[in-house]
């Protein structure tokens, strides 16, 4: 039984008939742990490449979706249908002058973009991209994801504070207030899901959603937890910091929020983190409520591949929804957002938890 990506790589190498040979070489030197490290390293490189390509694709997709809604074309010049636009953007951003304001806190100012990017990458570790396509099936996977997501406001606060700019500071304060008030309903609704599965492992959660009722309706948690799904979706959009909840940025009020003073590659890091986060959170929504990679299997094609495709389709559907939302609605006001979070979302999440408790205890499903 292949459980994670490490074993998958070993399995593929074994199938090719080279694993024993390579392993033998390392063993003859008595350093077989080095092989393990190399394989893990390969995993990370693949993940990193995947995230970067995804982010680039997402920036292109965002522009195209916006353009579609606004009856424009969007990027069309660089590459077919403007597909190479993100590459051009990257080249441009690398070429930009790296400005550090004279009165900024140099070290924190430089450090903040990286601190933003790291949690955005770490979230991917327990995220199941497909059957056995997971870096590590942590037993506390869901807790880990929520904990790592809660790190990002720290980085935003660092960025906002170090910039020594009033707009940046206000943007950072808003981001922190927003993250704190939305992590709670997020966690509470996630717990409701966990009550069904009895496990925090993301793989277990996905497995629990396999199969169908009456042969038609898939056993996704969205059908058992409709309220939980809506709450989780709203809270996730607030977590991602996208319109209508993009307070950390809110360009028409705070210029550019916490990254007002950033330029060049540091700015690009925030951008990367934002889109990586968008993908990760969409993936989590899919995992928790939309059945993850569960779906019809096709003959002759390895289940890893079909499940990956199914997972990506679902994730992009969620991402498309987020982009669509961005083009349609204005931004709410920060105090309205906090009111919504504390006065409506949290009580509803608790209520949802209570109902779930009844259902689980009664053993209805």
């Amino acid at each position, binding site marked *: 039984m292949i459980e994670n990506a490490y074993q998958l790589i070993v399995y593929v190498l074994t199938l090719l008939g080279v694993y024993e040979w390579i392993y033998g070489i390392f063993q003859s030197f008595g350093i077989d742990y080095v092989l393990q490290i190399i394989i893990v390293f390969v995993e990370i490189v693949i993940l990193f490449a995947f995230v970067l390509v995804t982010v680039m694709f997402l920036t292109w997709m965002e522009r195209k979706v*916006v353009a579609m*809604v*606004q*009856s*424009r074309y969007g990027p069309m010049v660089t590459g077919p249908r403007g597909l190479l636009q993100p590459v051009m953007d990257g080249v441009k951003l690398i070429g930009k002058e790296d400005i550090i304001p004279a009165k900024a806190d140099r070290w924190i100012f430089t450090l903040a973009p990286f601190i933003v990017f790291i949690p955005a990458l770490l979230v991917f570790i327990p995220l199941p991209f497909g059957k056995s396509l997971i870096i590590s099936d942590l037993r506390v996977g869901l807790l880990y994801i929520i904990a790592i997501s809660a790190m990002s406001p720290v980085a935003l606060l660092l960025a906002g504070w170090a910039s020594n700019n*009033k707009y940046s500071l*206000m943007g950072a304060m808003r981001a922190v207030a927003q993250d704190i008030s939305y992590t709670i309903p997020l966690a509470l609704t996630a717990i409701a899901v966990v009550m069904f599965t009895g496990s925090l492992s993301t793989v277990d959660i996905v497995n629990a959603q396999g199969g169908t009722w009456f042969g038609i309706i898939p056993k996704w948690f969205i059908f058992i937890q409709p309220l939980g799904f809506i709450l989780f979706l709203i809270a996730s959009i607030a977590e991602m910091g996208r*319109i*209508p909840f*993009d307070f950390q940025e*809110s*360009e*028409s*009020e*705070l*210029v550019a929020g916490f990254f007002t003073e950033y330029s060049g590659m540091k700015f690009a890091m925030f951008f990367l983190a934002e889109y990586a986060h968008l993908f990760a959170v969409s993936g989590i929504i899919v995992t928790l409520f939309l059945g993850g990679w569960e779906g019809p299997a096709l003959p002759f094609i390895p289940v890893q591949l079909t499940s990956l495709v199914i997972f990506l389709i679902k994730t992009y559907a969620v991402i498309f929804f987020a982009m669509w939302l961005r*083009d*349609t*609605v*204005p*931004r*709410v*006001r*920060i*105090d*309205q957002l906090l009111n919504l979070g504390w006065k409506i979302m949290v009580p509803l999440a608790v209520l949802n938890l209570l109902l779930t408790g009844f259902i689980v205890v009664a053993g209805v499903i």
Partner: protein
Amino acid sequence: METEELLLNMGPVHPSTHGVLRFKLRMDGEIIKECNIVMGYLHRGTEKLGEMKTYLQFTPYTDRLDYISAFPNNYAYAKAIEELAGIEVPLRAEYIRVLTMELNRIINHLVFMGSLLMDLGAATMIMWGFREREKALQLFEMLCGARMTFNYIKPGGVRDDLPDGFIPKLNEFLKDMEKRIDDYEQLINENEIFLMRMKNIGVISAQEAINYGLTGPALRGSGVSYDIRKLEPYSIYPDLDFKVCVQSEGDSFARYMVRVDEMRESLHILRQVVDTMPEAKIVAQAKYGIAPMTGMPSAVSTYFPRIFAPPAGEVYSRIEAPKGELGFYIVSDGTTKPYRVKIRSPSFCNLTAIPRMVVGLKIPDLIAAFGTIDVVLGDVDR
């Protein structure tokens, strides 16, 4: 808890000050305690220029006041001179003037809607609005070759007759626009977040609004049924059937709704103008030695007098521009140049009420309220 007050300089370079305007805000956290407005970054001395140019030379400068809606500026200036000199304007010219001004009112409100929604964080409306605006701009281009600064309405008439094919294209635009306004309303008015942001924000009562000198949609949004087109009818407005759009709440949403309704009314006016346009092709007054214009190509525009001197006197003439009361106070000493040109610009006077509206609110509300006042900085700073 001890907190410190924050002095925030919003502008002159800021995405939602619609140009180079600066708010000096004293803030307690996110709440505005005091709002001071600093302006003049776009001051070009238009009034001084008016004293140094001849009467006709000054017309292009009026285009640059409120550059979003330049036809009413042209017209207000021309009207002041016509009143001063007692010039009668041919009927067809008046029809063309009203046509251009109402078309301009529509695109002014489109830009208003777009930029307001942009300030609130929804970028779609500005693209939709500019799509329709583009069609209107193409009509203007057909008319006078310019898209934003027209210099088309001159004292005594208009520069040219309507070009061939203008009316069919206009009809097409009117038909299209009808549907588009419904689209906008569907996109915006039914949006809960939009209502949340606009209702009960920046409320100003009718009494106060008058006291602060608010005019235009900003005043009508406070429930004052006023419209200079009705109160002091000018041009062909007395012959046209239209109603004054009023909302009673006095909040940002009321000011927004007034403008949406006004777009419909303008469409209604335009349809009437197109239907009843007189056939006689005379578009400029033959007084002061000007040859009568008979719908000839644009070379004829040279028949407008380079130099003419209205009799000595003073006049204050005002019109209902898209943004409010636009007035010109002109003092003539009988020479070829005005002795004094004073411009009463709607943006400048409407802006007075902003500090009163926003104290106690938050920055996002300031932006929403400021957006619904609809100023153009060229008009504020002159």
